[in-house]
């Protein structure tokens, strides 16, 4: 019996059973965003960076912290090299008088999910979400090895890009992609990122040939196939119903949001796909024909290809106009930044409907999808 196939089927069956329960949710929208990414953050520390971004986010719509009903953040002690690192960053919010607040040790996109849930209860109308990471302070590839099964895998210290390379080879050898296709993704990222001040690795005129001639650094991946690690942070304000309309001319309404997780054991999963990404998108109601844009969070070009397939993205959809994580990847914030990127293009009126995606864990283990709309 094909076990991997069976796992995927079970996962999907569970999701469909869930989907039959329809629910009407309160209208909640992104009304303000601010983000910053740079190769190495040196002029300010994380607390000052976040104080700047949070102030910018609040000031641009004229709200004070006292008017925010709930605050939720995402960060990682392991990334910071400090226990309780988020306690320091609470300074950047201005938490006096006291605030209703929570923290997830996850990407900020999951903090946004928690805030969205809180707004669904109906007791508060606004929420501030933020997350940040400063991977330049340590060796992220060693740090990420500590995410893995602590008995069988972590003691071998496999780095995150090597694991992603195992996945890329499977795609190549099963004929699901080609080197050229991967380089096209890398080129898309560098070209798109050119106009994004937060993108770190960008180029206006790099050719496919240049990219395909880059040396292989994590077999079979080339330099441009893997994400450019960057420091940074992101702040987002959510508001419900009339409050959203009063704060923002064109709020980016959250039409659906969902997240799912796959097995952790790499040898159990079919690494050429990501059932949890598919399921999260289904549950969020992706309706791929109507997506103007998508911001997807992959650590490699190959992962972006897997995600495009799981989300059934077509040529109609502009993918990673920001350059995506390949152009600047800030662990703990990359996912929230994807949401901010889609939301800002909707709020500006440039686009109508988009999909934002965040991932966590090795080889796309955990995935969140958020569908945003201008109407």
């Amino acid at each position, binding site marked *: 019996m094909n*076990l991997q196939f069976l796992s995927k089927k079970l996962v999907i069956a569970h999701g469909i059973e869930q989907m039959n329960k329809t629910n009407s949710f309160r209208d909640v929208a992104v009304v303000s965003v601010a983000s910053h990414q740079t190769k190495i953050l040196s002029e300010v520390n994380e607390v000052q960076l976040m104080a700047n971004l949070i102030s910018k986010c609040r000031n641009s719509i004229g709200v004070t912290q006292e008017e925010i009903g709930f605050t939720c953040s995402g960060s990682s002690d392991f990334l910071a090299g400090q226990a309780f690192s988020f306690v320091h960053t609470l300074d950047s919010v201005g938490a006096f008088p006291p605030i209703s607040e929570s923290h997830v040790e996850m990407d900020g996109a999951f903090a946004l999910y928690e805030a969205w849930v809180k707004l669904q209860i109906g007791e508060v109308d606004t929420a501030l979400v933020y997350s940040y990471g400063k991977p330049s302070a340590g060796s992220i590839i060693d740090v990420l090895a500590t995410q893995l099964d*602590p008995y*069988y895998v972590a*003691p071998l210290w496999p780095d995150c890009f090597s694991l992603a390379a*195992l996945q890329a*080879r499977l795609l190549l050898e099963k004929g699901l992609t080609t080197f050229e296709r991967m380089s096209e993704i890398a080129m898309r990222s560098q070209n798109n990122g050119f106009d994004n001040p937060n993108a770190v690795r960008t180029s206006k005129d790099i050719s496919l040939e240049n990219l395909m001639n880059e040396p292989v650094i*994590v077999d079979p991946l080339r330099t441009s196939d893997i994400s450019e690690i960057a420091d940074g942070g992101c702040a987002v304000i959510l508001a419900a119903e009339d409050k959203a309309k009063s704060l923002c001319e064109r709020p980016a309404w959250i039409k659906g949001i969902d997240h799912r997780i796959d*097995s952790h054991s790499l*040898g159990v999963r079919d690494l050429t796909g990501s059932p949890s990404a598919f399921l999260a998108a289904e549950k969020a109601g992706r309706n791929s024909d109507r997506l103007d844009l998508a911001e997807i969070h992959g650590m490699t070009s190959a992962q972006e290809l897997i995600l495009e397939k799981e989300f059934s993205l077509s040529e109609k959809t502009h993918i990673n106009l920001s350059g995506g994580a390949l152009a600047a990847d800030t662990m703990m914030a990359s996912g929230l930044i994807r949401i901010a990127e889609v939301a800002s293009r909707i709020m500006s009126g440039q686009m109508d409907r988009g999909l934002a995606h965040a991932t966590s864990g090795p080889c796309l283990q955990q995935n969140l999808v958020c569908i945003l709309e201008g109407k």
Partner: protein
Amino acid sequence: MSELEKPLRAELTVEYPFTRTTGKVIGAFMTGLREKRLFGIKRSDGSILVPPLEYDPVSSEPLTEMVEVSQNGIVETWTWIDPPRPQSPWDTPHALALIRLDGSDTSMLHAVLVDSPSDMRTGMRVTANWKEERIGHIADLEGFVKETKEADS
């Protein structure tokens, strides 16, 4: 830049020799490694999971029946590690691979010890190579090497 303007910086080391208690299933697998044996665990559909978990990785139901599996298997996918990370068990370049052992329905992550990436291919047959001194640790397996039968043929 003068000495005065150079930013102050310090190395911060977070270090601990974690000791993890294993429980019965992982403990049995580690005991097997010490004895140069590889064990898996049977799922409810009869398929075999290597390395074994205490629970089904999809349904979470407890698993109880451990079975021995072959020390030979095939490479399902691989990459090349050069140089190895400072704390990894290896100090020379090697392949990192997902290996499906004969008798197992899932694959495990470990090293394949060959000289260069040109010696690697997906689907190649490999066999376990053991360290002389074994303590019951995933690195008791030095890695996998090319199966000699295949080399002969």
